[in-house]
């Protein structure tokens, strides 16, 4: 293992801390998610480290549970998008022919409409629950993973070792999972971080618009929305969850940048 640059180390630390908070939310939150334990928009105090929110709930506890909701939905959506996107991408690349054409044109079509607009149209027609949010985000984002994994796999399928596997009579699933996947892993891992950030920003944006996670549950975007009215009166409560979103995104970005630069330097690319 080569030395990890300081920026990536900070990124890993920040990301790890957020995941730790999300996993242990039930035990470390000082108050429950819904209990009103103080006045409206109280300032920072010993009892409420970040003050209270728009109806007197402890903001720090809401933030901790919000981390759980945000990170859970973003992680689930990312896993879904990678599972479907990469398998379909590899399938399209190895099968070629009409299957490749149909899948690729379908993905072109979905990507021709901005993701936010398309998901707003879909969310008008379905019930908004955490499950539907994960499905909508995961499948829409799978298009990007599909493009990447198809492009990578097209280069790999013409390699001699894939040809050798074909000639000795291996099935398609062997070729996809045993020959292509291990060799396509590093660009996919680099993409994983970027897709995760996108999912975090996206679920926050949807919740901010009131179309994501529904109350009384709240993710960070929802917390910004709930407390945004206070900003005009000089109450900075909405800035705390906003700051958390930005911090997580920057942390993951730093790690992804490092992974990306490692994989490009492995390929011996010229541009930095």
């Amino acid at each position, binding site marked *: 293992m080569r030395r990890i640059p300081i920026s990536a180390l900070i990124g890993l630390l920040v990301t790890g801390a957020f995941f730790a908070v999300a996993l242990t939310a039930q035990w470390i939150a000082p108050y429950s998610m819904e209990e009103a334990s103080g006045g409206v928009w109280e300032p920072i105090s010993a009892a409420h480290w970040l003050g209270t929110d728009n109806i007197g709930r402890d903001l720090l506890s809401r933030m901790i549970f919000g981390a759980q909701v945000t990170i859970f939905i973003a992680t689930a959506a990312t896993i879904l998008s990678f599972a479907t996107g990469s398998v379909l991408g590899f399938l399209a690349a190895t099968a070629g022919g009409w299957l490749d054409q149909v899948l690729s044109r379908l993905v*072109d*079509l979905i990507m*021709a409409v901005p993701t*936010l607009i398309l998901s707003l149209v879909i969310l008008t027609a*379905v019930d908004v629950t955490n499950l539907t949010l994960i499905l909508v985000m995961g499948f829409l984002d799978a298009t990007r993973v599909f493009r990447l994994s198809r492009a990578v796999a097209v280069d790999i399928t013409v390699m001699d070792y894939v040809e050798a596997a074909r000639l000795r009579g291996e099935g398609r699933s062997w070729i996809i999972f045993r020959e292509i996947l291990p060799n396509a892993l590093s660009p996919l891992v680099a993409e994983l971080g970027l897709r995760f950030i996108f999912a975090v920003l996206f679920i926050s944006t949807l919740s901010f618009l009131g179309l994501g996670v529904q109350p009384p549950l709240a993710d960070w975007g929802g917390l910004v929305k709930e407390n945004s009215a206070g900003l005009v009166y*000089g109450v900075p409560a909405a*800035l705390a969850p906003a700051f958390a979103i930005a911090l997580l995104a*920057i942390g993951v970005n730093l790690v992804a940048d490092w992974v990306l630069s490692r994989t490009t330097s492995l390929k011996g690319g*010229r541009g930095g």
Partner: protein
Amino acid sequence: MNSVLKLVAQRIALGLLLLLAVSILIFFGIEALPGDAAQAMLGQSATPEALANLRHQMGLDQPELPRYFHWLGGLLTGDLGKSLTNGEDIAAAIGNRLGNTLFLAFWAAIFAVPLAILLGLLAARHAGKWQDKLISGVTLATISLPEFVAGYLVMYFLAVYWRVFPSMAMIFPGMSLWTKLNTIALPVIVLVMVVLAHMMRMTRAAILNVMQSAYIETAELKGLGPLAVVWRHAFPNAIAPVVNVVMLNLAYLVVGVVVVEVVFVYPGMGQFLVDHVAKRDLPVVQACGMIFAAVYIGLNILADVISILANPRLRHPK
């Protein structure tokens, strides 16, 4: 010149075909989902009679194909149907708001484009040095901010703390241009922040890509000064990628506008769309979605057409 025209015509035709496909996606994609607009409006607990009633009222009991063609025909002739929630004519409600949204996006673009190209050039010129690192660091931070976070940060500091600009961007038809610009200052700043980072990064990459080509090395080796290299060799080849970057980001701007409008309560298309998603007003959402998609695809076509026209290899046929 003929081959260029043919390419451009092909690209435009392809774009129109794509738009048709998107209309099918937006119309039939919704049909394929479980439940329908009537169910969504009334909720899960609605009685079957009420559902059937509303379905009939909305025309949902008609077969799909004629309904699609009716809807498409309406889109083409500017008749967007009526809103479910208040029976208002959608086209009339959207007209003014679309103008407001384009007004906002226009002013954001006016500031963002030159700034991004300048910063991109600067970063590419000093690639790897501290100027480059500073610019990439700052842009990394702004990319990590969702639009609404940037919006509230700017609002808190510039409107509440220092009181430079108004926090709400309510504009009216009768306002003078100057008051309008003052009112939309904050949303414009946020949009510029959001697009600038992407545009600058892509400009930097496009220029670095050109600067690393073999012909630039040749020009340097034959003794041309740096200015001559940039002006005679790098610039003509960088126009196409840079214009492409600008257009793609303008398309992105049109989407970013949705969130920013909600933050600053700006009376544009984006806020209208979000309001009606919450009210589950499917006809309005479909119409707005089509308009956003059309603008987005239109700008993408424009990007391709400009890069075809700007390509020196296509301009001088052998």
